[in-house]
C-alpha cells in the first residue's frame, strides 16, 4: 500500500521538477506528466480496492508526526477513496484527451493541470478546515489558469469573473474560519462540529459564513453566472474536469462541512437552495443553444440536485450516500463524456451536433449519456431517483418529489431537443471532424464506467430481479450484429420473439389477461416484423430499438413489482422513441412524444411512490390499497397511463408520431404500443376495484374524457388529407372507446373494452400495414393524389374493406360485437349522454372510413400511377393472417369473449352476459353472431346471383366512360373528388376539432420558454452584476437563516 500522502508528494515533486525541462526535454516532461497522473490514479485506486475487497479500516495520515488538532491530518476512508479515484481517473483521461493542447502550451500548462488534480485530491482528503481552504484556493487558481488554455479573450473575461467571485467567497470563508477557530479553539473540522457552532449566535454567524462560502463554490442559482461563463469559455476538456472532478470534490467537501450547521432548519435551507438551483438552471437551459454553456447549466443543475439530496439527509437516513452516489456517478461519467464529445465536434450551436451521425460510436455514447442524465434505466441515476422518490414519499415529503420530477422534466425538455437535433437534422454541409484515438478512448472509457456502474449499482441496490435480462441480452446481441443486412436480423428477431413467447407462455397459465396482452404484444411484434422483410438495406439501429420496445412490453407483462413495471415502462418508452424518430419528418413529433411520455412516467412514478409509501411493499398489488392521498395517487397513475393511450388533452403527440413513422413502425406503435397504456389502465382499474370511494369521481371524469376523446379523434380523422394521419386520429378515437369502456367498471363495459382492444389491435395493424405500404409505393401521404387503386391492388382493397367494416361496427363482422355490448353496457350503467356521444362518434367514423377507402382505392386512377403494382407480399401476409383472425372472432366470438367474461366475472357483481352456444343474452337484448353471419352470407349470395343473372351482358368500360355532360374528362384529377370533401360538414361541426388543445400546449411551452428567456437575463455578462448576485444571495440567506426574517 502506497501512503496517500504520496499523491501530494508525487504530484508536487513532478510539477516542481518539470520546471527543469526546457524545450528540448519536453517529451520527457510529457511522459512524466502522464505517468504521474497514472500513479495518482493507481494510489487512490488501490486504496479503493483495499476498502472494497479487504474492507480495510479508514487510514489517518498525520503530517508532521503530531496528533490533531495541532497538526494537519488527512484521512483516507472509503468515501475518500471513491472520490479520489473518480477525480484521478477523470484527471488521467482528461490529460490524455487534452494532451496535444497541453503539450503545445508547454510544461507550465502541464504543471498547472497536475496541481489542479492534486489539490482536488487534498481537498477531498483533508480534515483540517484551513488546509481545506488553502487547497481549494490552489484548485481555483489552477483552474483560473486552465481556463486560459484556449487563449481567447472570452476565456480571460470568464477567468476574471471567476477569480473575483471565488476570491470574495474565500475571503468570507476565512472570516468564518477564524471566528470559528476562536470559538472552538481548533482548526479541525470535527472539533468545530463538536463545538456546536450553530448553537450560539456568535459562532453561528461564523458557521453561516463557512457554509455560505462553500455553497457559493457550488454555484447556487441565481448567483452562478460567473461559474457558467467558465464552462462556456474554457476548453471543453477543462469543462469536463470542472464538471466531473471539481463538482464531485466540492460536493464531497460540502458533505464534510455540512454538520457544522447541523441545526434544525439549516439542512432544510440547504435542500431548498439545492432545489431552486436544480429547477432554475434547468429552466434557463431550455433556451440555450451553445452546447458547452448548456452542459454548464445542466451540471449546475445536477449539483443543485445533489445538494438538495444532501440537505434532505435527515429524511433519507442511511440511503443518502448511495442515492447521491448513484446520481453523482451518472453525472460524472455523462458530463465528462459529453464535454469531450463537444470538444471533438467543436460546434457553436447544438443544431450542428447532427454532424455526430458521421460517427455512430459517438452518437451511441451521446445517446447513452443523455439518457443517463435524465435517469432512464439501466443507468445508475434511474435507481437513484427511484430509491429517492420511494423514500421521500414514504416519509411524506411530497413537495420535494414534485420539485424533483418537475426539474427532471425540464431537463428532459432541452436534452431531448438536443438528441433530436443530433439524430435528425441535416448534416450534409457540416464540416467533417477527426476523432483521434487519444480523444476517443477517454470518451469510450467514460461510457464503460457508466455501464459498469449501472451493473454494479443494480447489484448494490439489489435491483437485479427487477430486470428481465434475457430480452435485454437479446437486444444487445441484435445490436452486435447490427451491421448485417436487414432480412437476417429480421429472421433472428422473429425467431427470438417466438422462442421467448414459447418460453413465457407456461408461466402465464390461467392468467388470461396477461395471455391476451402477450398475444397482442408479441404476436403483433412477429406480424409487424414479418412486414419488415419488405425493407432493403441494413436498417441500421432499427432492430435493437424495436426489440428494446418489445422487451419493455414483455417486461410489463412479467412485472410483479412496481419497480419492474416502471423499469420496463421506461425501457419501452426509450425504444419506441427511437423507433418513432426514424421517420423522415418526425423529429418534432418524436420530441413531443417523449416529453409527454416522460411527464406521464413521472406521474406514474409519483403514484407508485404514494402506493409504496402507504403499503411499504413494492409489489404491484400495493396499488389496491393506497392510503396516502389515494384520490391523487389514482389520478396520477391514470394520467400517466393515458399519456400512452393518447386520451383527450394528452393526444396531440400521436397524429404526427404515428403519421410520420416508417411504414412498419406505425403499426407497431399504433396497434401494439398504445395497448401498453391500456394494460396499465386495466391493472390500475383492477386494483382500484368496483365502487372504491376514492376513485368514483375519477372514473366518472375518465368516462367523459373517453367519450370526448372518441368524438374528437373521429372528427379529427374526418378532416385529414394525409392517409396515415387519418389512421392516427382514428387510433385516438378507438382508444377513447377503450378508455370509456373500462371506466364503466361493470361486466358488460369491460367485455366491450376487451372486444375493442382486440379488434383495434387487428384492424389497425392491417390498416397501417397496408396503407403504409401503399404510401411507400405511391410516394405520397395525400389521399387526393391517390385513387383508383382497386384495380391495381385488389388484395389491399379487400383487406382495407374488411377492416373498415369492423371499425364501422357493421354486422356481421366483429366490430358489431363491440357496438352491441356498448349499447347494453351504457343502458345498464346509465351513462346515456356519454353513450349518445359515443354512438354519434361511431357514425362519424363512417365519414373518414369512406374517405379513406374511396379516395385511395376508388374514384379516378391517376396518370402517374398507371403502372404501379400490388404492394409487397410481406405486408399482405401478416394482414391476411389478421383478417383470418377477424373472421374467426366475428363468426365465433364466444370462444374468446366467454373466457374473458369468466375471467372478469369475479371482479364485478354487476349482471353478466350469458352464453348459450353462440347466442349471447343480457337482460336487455340478445345477439347471435354465428346465425347473423350465416343469414347475411346466404342472403348476400342469393342477391348477387340474382343480379348476375339479370345483368349478364354487363360490359367493362374505360375509366373515363362516365355520364359527364357528354364530355370526356381529360385529366383524372379534375374528376377525383377527394380533397376536403366534407367541407360542408366542417362548416357545420368543424368547431369541435378546432385545435384548442394543441394551442393550449403550444401556449404553455411558449410561456415556459418566454419565462426562461426572461429569467436568463440576469446573466447580463457583467462581472459586477455577478458579484452583486452573490452578495445579494448571501445577505438574503443570512436574513432568512439567522437575521430572524
Amino acid at each position, binding site marked *: 500500500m502506497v501512503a496517500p500522502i504520496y499523491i501530494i*508528494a508525487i504530484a508536487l515533486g513532478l510539477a516542481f521538477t518539470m520546471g527543469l525541462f526546457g524545450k528540448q526535454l519536453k517529451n520527457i516532461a510529457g511522459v512524466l506528466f502522464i505517468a504521474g497522473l497514472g500513479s495518482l490514479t493507481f494510489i487512490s485506486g488501490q486504496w479503493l480496492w483495499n476498502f472494497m475487497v479487504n474492507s480495510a479500516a479508514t487510514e489517518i495520515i498525520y503530517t*508532521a508526526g503530531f496528533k490533531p488538532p495541532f*497538526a494537519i491530518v488527512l484521512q483516507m476512508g472509503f468515501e475518500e477513496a471513491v472520490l479520489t479515484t473518480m477525480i484521478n481517473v477523470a484527471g488521467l483521461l482528461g490529460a490524455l484527451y487534452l494532451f496535444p493542447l497541453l503539450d503545445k502550451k508547454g510544461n507550465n500548462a502541464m504543471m498547472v493541470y497536475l496541481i489542479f488534480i492534486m489539490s482536488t485530491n487534498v481537498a477531498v482528503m483533508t480534515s483540517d478546515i484551513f488546509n481545506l481552504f488553502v*487547497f481549494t484556493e490552489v484548485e481555483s487558481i489552477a483552474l483560473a*489558469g486552465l481556463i486560459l488554455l484556449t487563449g481567447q479573450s472570452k476565456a480571460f473575461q470568464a477567468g476574471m469573473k471567476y477569480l473575483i467571485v471565488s476570491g470574495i467567497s474565500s475571503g468570507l470563508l476565512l472570516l468564518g474560519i477564524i471566528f470559528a477557530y476562536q470559538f472552538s479553539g481548533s482548526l479541525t473540522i470535527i472539533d468545530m462540529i463538536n463545538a456546536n457552532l450553530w448553537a450560539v449566535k456568535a459562532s453561528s454567524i461564523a458557521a453561516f459564513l463557512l457554509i455560505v462560502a462553500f455553497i457559493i463554490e457550488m454555484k447556487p442559482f441565481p448567483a452562478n453566472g460567473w461559474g457558467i461563463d467558465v464552462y462556456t469559455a474554457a476548453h471543453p476538456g477543462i469543462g469536463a474536469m470542472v464538471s466531473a472532478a471539481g463538482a464531485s470534490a466540492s460536493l464531497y467537501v460540502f458533505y464534510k462541512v455540512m454538520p457544522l450547521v447541523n441545526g434544525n432548519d439549516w439542512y432544510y435551507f440547504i435542500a431548498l437552495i439545492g432545489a431552486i438551483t436544480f429547477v432554475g438552471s434547468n429552466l434557463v437551459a431550455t433556451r440555450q443553444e451553445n452546447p458547452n454553456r448548456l452542459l454548464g447549466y445542466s451540471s449546475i443543475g445536477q449539483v443543485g440536485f445533489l445538494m438538495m439530496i444532501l440537505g434532505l439527509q435527515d429524511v433519507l437516513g442511511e440511503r443518502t450516500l448511495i442515492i447521491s452516489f448513484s446520481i453523482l456517478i451518472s453525472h460524472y461519467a455523462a458530463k465528462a463524456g459529453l464535454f469531450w464529445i463537444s470538444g471533438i465536434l467543436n460546434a457553436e450551436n447544438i443544431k450542428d451536433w447532427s454532424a455526430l451521425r458521421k460517427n455512430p460510436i459517438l452518437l451511441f455514447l451521446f445517446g447513452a449519456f443523455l439518457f443517463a442524465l435524465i435517469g432512464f434505466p439501466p443507468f445508475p441515476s434511474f435507481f437513484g431517483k427511484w430509491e429517492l422518490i420511494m423514500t421521500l414519499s414514504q416519509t411524506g415529503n411530497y413537495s420535494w418529489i414534485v420539485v424533483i420530477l418537475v426539474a427532471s422534466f425540464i431537463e428532459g425538455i432541452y436534452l431531448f431537443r438536443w438528441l433530436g437535433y443530433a439524430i435528425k437534422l441535416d448534416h450534409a454541409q457540416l464540416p467533417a471532424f477527426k476523432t483521434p484515438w487519444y480523444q476517443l478512448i477517454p470518451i469510450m472509457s467514460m461510457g464503460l464506467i457508466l455501464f459498469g456502474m449501472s451493473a454494479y449499482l443494480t447489484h448494490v441496490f439489489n435491483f437485479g430481479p427487477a430486470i428481465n435480462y434475457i430480452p435485454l441480452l437479446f437486444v444487445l446481441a441484435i445490436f452486435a450484429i447490427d451491421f448485417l443486412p436487414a432480412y437476417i436480423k429480421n429472421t433472428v428477431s422473429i425467431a427470438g420473439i417466438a422462442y421467448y413467447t414459447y418460453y413465457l407462455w407456461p408461466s402465464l397459465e390461467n392468467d388470461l389477461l396477461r395471455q391476451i396482452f402477450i398475444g397482442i404484444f408479441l404476436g403483433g411484434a412477429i406480424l409487424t416484423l414479418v412486414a419488415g422483410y419488405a425493407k432493403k438495406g441494413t436498417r441500421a439501429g432499427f432492430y435493437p430499438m424495436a426489440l428494446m420496445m418489445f422487451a419493455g412490453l414483455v417486461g410489463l407483462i412479467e412485472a410483479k413489482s412496481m419497480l419492474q413495471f416502471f423499469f420496463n415502462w421506461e425501457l419501452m418508452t426509450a425504444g419506441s422513441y427511437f423507433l418513432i424518430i426514424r421517420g423522415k419528418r418526425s423529429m418534432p413529433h418524436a420530441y413531443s412524444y417523449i416529453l409527454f411520455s416522460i411527464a406521464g412516467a413521472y406521474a406514474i412514478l409519483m403514484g407508485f411512490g404514494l402506493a409504496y409509501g402507504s403499503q411499504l411493499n413494492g409489489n404491484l398489488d400495493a396499488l389496491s390499497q393506497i392510503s396516502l392521498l389515494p384520490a391523487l395517487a389514482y389520478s396520477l397513475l391514470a394520467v400517466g397511463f393515458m399519456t400512452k393511450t393518447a386520451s383527450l388533452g394528452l393526444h396531440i403527440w400521436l397524429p404526427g408520431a404515428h403519421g410520420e413513422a416508417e411504414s412498419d413502425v406505425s403499426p407497431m406503435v399504433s396497434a401494439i404500443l398504445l395497448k401498453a397504456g391500456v394494460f396499465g389502465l386495466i391493472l390500475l382499474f383492477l386494483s382500484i376495484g368496483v365502487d372504491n370511494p376514492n376513485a368514483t369521481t375519477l372514473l366518472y371524469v375518465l368516462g367523459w374524457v373517453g367519450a370526448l376523446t372518441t368524438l374528437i379523434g373521429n372528427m379529427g380523422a374526418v378532416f385529414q388529407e394525409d392517409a396515415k394521419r387519418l389512421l392516427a386520429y382514428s387510433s385516438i378515437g378507438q382508444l377513447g372507446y377503450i378508455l370509456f369502456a373500462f371506466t364503466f367498471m361493470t361486466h358488460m363495459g369491460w367485455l366491450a373494452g376487451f372486444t375493442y382492444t382486440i379488434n383495434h389491435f387487428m384492424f389497425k395493424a392491417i390498416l397501417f400495414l397496408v396503407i403504409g405500404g401503399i404510401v411507400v409505393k405511391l410516394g405520397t401521404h395525400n389521399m387526393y393524389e391517390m385513387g383508383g387503386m382497386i384495380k391495381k391492388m385488389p388484395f389491399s382493397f379487400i383487406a382495407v374493406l374488411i377492416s373498415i367494416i369492423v371499425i364501422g361496427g357493421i354486422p356481421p363482422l366483429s366490430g358489431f360485437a363491440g357496438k352491441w355490448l356498448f349499447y347494453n353496457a351504457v343502458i345498464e350503467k346509465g351513462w346515456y349522454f356519454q353513450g349518445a356521444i359515443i354512438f354519434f362518434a361511431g357514425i362519424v367514423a363512417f365519414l373518414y372510413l369512406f374517405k379513406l377507402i374511396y379516395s385511395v382505392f376508388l374514384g379516378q386512377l391517376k396518370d402517374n400511377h398507371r403502372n404501379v403494382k400490388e404492394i409487397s407480399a410481406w405486408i399482405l401476409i401478416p394482414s391476411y393472417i389478421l383478417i383470418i383472425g377477424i373472421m374467426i372472432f366475428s363468426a365465433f366470438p364466444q370462444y374468446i369473449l366467454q373466457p374473458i367474461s369468466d375471467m372478469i366475472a369475479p371482479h364485478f357483481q354487476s349482471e353478466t352476459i350469458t352464453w348459450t352456444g353462440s347466442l349471447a343474452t343480457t337482460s336487455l337484448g340478445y345477439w347471435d353472431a354465428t346465425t347473423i353471419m350465416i343469414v347475411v352470407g346466404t342472403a348476400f349470395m342469393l342477391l348477387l346471383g340474382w343480379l348476375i343473372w339479370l345483368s349478364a351482358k354487363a360490359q367493362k368500360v374505360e375509366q373515363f366512360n362516365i355520364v359527364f355532360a357528354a364530355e370526356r374528362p381529360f385529366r383524372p384529377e379534375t374528376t377525383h373528388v377527394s380533397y376536403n370533401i366534407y367541407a360542408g360538414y366542417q362548416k357545420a361541426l368543424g368547431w369541435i376539432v378546432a385545435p384548442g388543445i394543441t394551442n393550449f400546449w403550444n401556449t404553455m411551452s411558449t410561456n415556459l420558454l418566454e419565462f426562461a428567456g426572461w429569467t436568463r437575463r440576469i446573466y447580463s455578462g457583467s462581472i459586477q452584476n455577478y458579484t452583486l448576485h452573490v452578495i*445579494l444571495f448571501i*445577505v438574503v440567506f443570512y436574513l432568512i437563516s439567522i437575521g430572524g426574517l
Partner: protein
Amino acid sequence: MLKKILILFLLAGVGLIFFDLFQSYQSASELTTTAKYYADNGAKEVGAANLVSAIVVTYRGLDTLGEVSILFVTAAIISFVLKHKPEEEDKNRVIKPASEILNTATVFLTPVMIMVGIYIFINGHLTPGGGFQGGAVIASAVLLIFLANPKFHLNHSIIAFVESISGVAFVVVGALGLIMAGGFLDNRILGLGEFGTLFSAGALPIIYIFIGLKVGAELSNIVGILAQEQNIKN
C-alpha cells in the same frame, strides 16, 4: 443610480452581518487549546524560538506547501499566458532613462537587499520573518533593478532552475520526514539542536531556505514577466 442604491443596500446587509459578528465578539481572555499547546510544547517539539515559524513550517507544513504551490501555479500561469517570442519585442523603444538617484541607489541597494532577504529566511526560526518574507525582499530587489533599467533581461532559465530545485528539495525533505520521522514534513529528521541557536529546530531552517529561494525566484519571475510585457509592441 438605481444600481448604486442597490449596492449600498446590499453593503448595509453585509454590514448587518458584520455588526452581529462584532457585537457577539468578545476578545479572548486566554489562549485557545491549540495555541496553548503550541505555546507549551512548540519550542520543545520543534525547537524553534519563533512559534509562528514552527507552526507555518512544521505543524501546518502542508498549508505552506499549498502556499508555495499557489505561488508556483501563479508564476506558471503567468508565464504561459504572457509568453512572448523575443522578436515580438521592439528593441528601439525609447524610454526616459531613470533618474541618477534611482540608478545609484539600485547599484548600492540591490546587493544589500538580497543579503537582507537571505538573512531573513535563514533566521526565520529565530526572529520574525521567514522564507516568504525573505523571498519577497529578494524579489523587491529585482523589482528595483527593473525600475532602474526597464530593458533588463532576467535569465529565466536560471530562475526556473532555482525554483524547481528548491521546490523539489522541499518536497523531498517532507518525504524524508515521512520516512525517517513521524510524518510528512516532520522536521525532526535532523537533531533539534540547542534552542535559540542558528543550527536548531531540525530541518525547519533548511525548509525555510528552500522556501525563501523558491518564493524569491517565483516572485522575481512574476515581476520579470510583467515588466517584460511593457516592451511588447502592440
